[in-house]
């Protein structure tokens, strides 16, 4: 009723909020922002703007919400409300140079495709997971490994998981609890071994 009678007012508020989120994405998600630049109140403001725009349920907000998708569940929830309509723009983010963005885009795309639950969507998920397991960024490979855990067809991924469990190169100083990797911590290998164990033990996943 309000929209129909006074579209200009509602429009100005909606567009103002969407534009604001675009600005705040640039402010808070910019690569040149060193840690500690912004206060807790600033970050709270950003969270509020994300929440407000998520509530709009307006397709024009999708690019701004995608720009905020690495911030967590509120932005993700706002994107998922659009269902299939969000899939194309989300998949585009798999070309993003930022590995964290690609990892998040992968998780959201798989969630959208899972909802379709048909042969085409299942094949597409498998293709996405296979290509992401070879991503140059370890966070994308880790995300793919964790997503495989919850797939019905996870058995098909055992060979590639075994390869990652032995040979993934990403490492940091430190030790894992199982002591397999001597004095290094290999995050992708650790996740791959865990998923392989779960597959072997027929353990259900924890999405």
């Amino acid at each position, binding site marked *: *009723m309000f929209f129909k009678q*006074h579209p200009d007012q509602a429009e*100005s*508020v909606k567009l103002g909020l969407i534009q*604001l989120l675009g600005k705040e994405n640039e402010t808070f998600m910019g690569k040149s922002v060193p840690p500690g630049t*912004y206060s807790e109140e600033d970050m*709270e403001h950003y*969270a*509020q703007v994300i929440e407000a725009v998520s509530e*709009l349920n307006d397709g024009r907000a999708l690019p701004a919400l995608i720009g905020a998708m690495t911030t967590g569940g509120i932005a993700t929830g706002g994107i998922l409300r659009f269902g299939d309509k969000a899939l194309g723009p989300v998949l585009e983010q798999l070309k993003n140079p930022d590995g964290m963005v690609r990892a998040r885009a992968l998780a959201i795309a798989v969630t959208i495709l899972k909802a379709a639950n048909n042969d085409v969507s299942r094949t597409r998920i498998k293709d996405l997971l296979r290509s992401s397991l070879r991503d140059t960024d370890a966070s994308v490979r880790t995300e793919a490994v964790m997503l495989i855990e919850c797939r019905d067809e996870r058995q098909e991924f055992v060979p590639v998981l075994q390869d990652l469990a032995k040979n993934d190169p990403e490492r940091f100083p430190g030790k894992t609890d199982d002591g397999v990797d001597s004095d290094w911590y290999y995050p992708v290998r650790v996740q791959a071994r865990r998923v392989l164990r779960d597959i072997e033990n027929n353990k259900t996943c924890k999405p």
Partner: protein
Amino acid sequence: MRTKRVAWILGLFLSGAANAQLATDLANSKVPNALERMQSADLQTREAGFDELMTELSSEVQNQTNPHEPSEVYPCFSSSIRIKPNQSN
């Protein structure tokens, strides 16, 4: 800190729960100014503009729908968030 229910405010505003009088009230309120401040290049000004917008929408919606602030989050919207105290209050 006081609780501000952005989702609740926007939900009522955008669902049309407010009546026609609201549009006139909004036009005469601080909303246009808040929207302008939200476009500022300065983060603090944008924050103040956003807070002002939420405050204005909240008071206008409540004046037109329910004079009492809800003691719980409006059931249609599951989330509630907090914002910093309004410096002008």
